């Protein structure tokens, strides 16, 4: 079929073309800019390797900090002498927590959150219990890994 008159005038066509073109070009440019401005995100590690002798000897009812990526990790020995590794970051708003040996609880100073020895959130705003890690001793090394992650520590 042939129509005598086009539904679109030359002018609308050109305006649409120009507008669309500019839009496409602009968004492409902007995309590149945003891509650069947005940081490449690192990831939390799956495991860290520490020197066993530094950590296993700590006194009972105390903690020793280690670096879990950029975050705080705590190596914890309770009153019975059992050891645990946990993430020392409050589940409320990510403040670093401390261990209060007198109360045998973990404490977050930001909004007064309390966790018991097993990491349960017992008081204050924190919505979730603390995250505990698996720890294993391999000779000299103390391997601390995220729960449920199977790791093959590099042979070195």
């Amino acid at each position, binding site marked *: 079929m042939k129509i005598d008159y086009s539904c679109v005038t030359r002018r609308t066509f050109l305006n649409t073309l120009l507008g669309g073109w500019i839009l496409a070009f602009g968004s492409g440019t902007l995309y590149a800019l945003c891509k650069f*401005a*947005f*940081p490449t*995100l*690192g*990831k*939390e590690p799956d495991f860290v390797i520490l020197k066993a002798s530094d950590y296993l000897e700590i006194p009972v009812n105390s903690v020793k*900090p280690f*670096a879990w*990526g*950029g*975050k*705080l990790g705590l190596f914890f020995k309770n009153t019975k002498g059992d050891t645990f590794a946990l993430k*020392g970051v*409050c589940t*409320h*708003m*990510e*403040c*670093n*927590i*401390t261990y209060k040996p007198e109360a045998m609880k973990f404490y*977050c*100073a*930001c*909004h007064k959150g309390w966790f018991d020895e097993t990491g349960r959130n017992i008081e204050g*705003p*924190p*919505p979730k219990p603390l995250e505990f890690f698996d720890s294993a001793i391999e000779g000299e090394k103390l391997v601390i890994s995220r729960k449920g992650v199977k790791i093959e520590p590099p042979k070195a």
Partner: protein
Amino acid sequence: MNRQRLRRWFEERYDLTEIGRLAGSKLVPSHRYEIWYYTGGIALFLFVLQFITGMVLALYYVPHFEYAYKSIADIVTKLNMGWFFRSLHHWGAQLAIAALFVHLFSALLLKSYRKPREFLWLSGFILLVISIFFGLSGYLLLWDERAFAAVKVATGGAGNLPVAGHCIKAFLRGGIDVTGETLTRFYAFHVSILPLATLFLIGIHVLLVQYHGLSVPVSLEGKSRREIPFFPNLFLKDLMIWLIMLGIVVTLATLLPPEIGKIADPLAPAPENIKPEWYFLFLFQTLKLFPGEIFGLNGETVAILLISCGICFFFLIPFFDRKSAHGQRSPFFTWIGIFYTLYFIVMTFIGFLS
């Protein structure tokens, strides 16, 4: 070259008498609420002060997480008057934000936002948001324990926003955590991105004030009132107030220099009793009102969602207030305005005292 010649030199190029006439013809309404007109001028003055003190501080500050803290310690202890200018920058910021809040609430209660001044309201509001972000980013530059924890909590709070929360958080932090990268980022915000945006918006804001003239409260509209020339009468009054403001800032800066805590350490436990800056207290207190969990949802997220709605309504209030747009009284929105004002004041006080 004597003055006459200089004057003539300019007159040949620019129509000075015309400019003088224009400046002289700007009239400002004079009535019993006119005192609130000065709040904007005060804010402007404090901004200029912030720009100047900021520039001199930038001559010495090192934006790197290993040196930042030390460079500020050096500014404070080793440089001539360093402690003073840092303190001045701090107090200037506090007062600037206070002046902005007063300016905002006075505009809200006098309904200066009504038609045709919607864009004035919007640009002013954005300026306030920018200033608050100025405060937050400037605070982190100190890189001490408290600033570190405060920024962690504030950016973490932004992360609770639905949908875009995580992106915003990562963008602000420059990673998944608050690290040295965050410091670099906040430095860029604080000394380049935000100041330029501020200049641009202040330009628009002031131009719009020129274009629309000063708003007159609804209750006084239509009545015959006195008008006084802006130049020189009001300008001289402004000048006096600015001078007194300068005196106040300088006095505060000398008597109460802000302290510097221990250096930030990502692995150290959070310091006891951290409190956000006073202009965040009302948000902080509101967050505390909500329980940890509401209908199985994260209470934090619900709270932040509600707060965002409240702020959005506040931002768009000129478009909701249909009555005053037509020049009628709208007591309902006066009540809303009073509610917002009181809420802010009361919450800030509670936060301050607790």
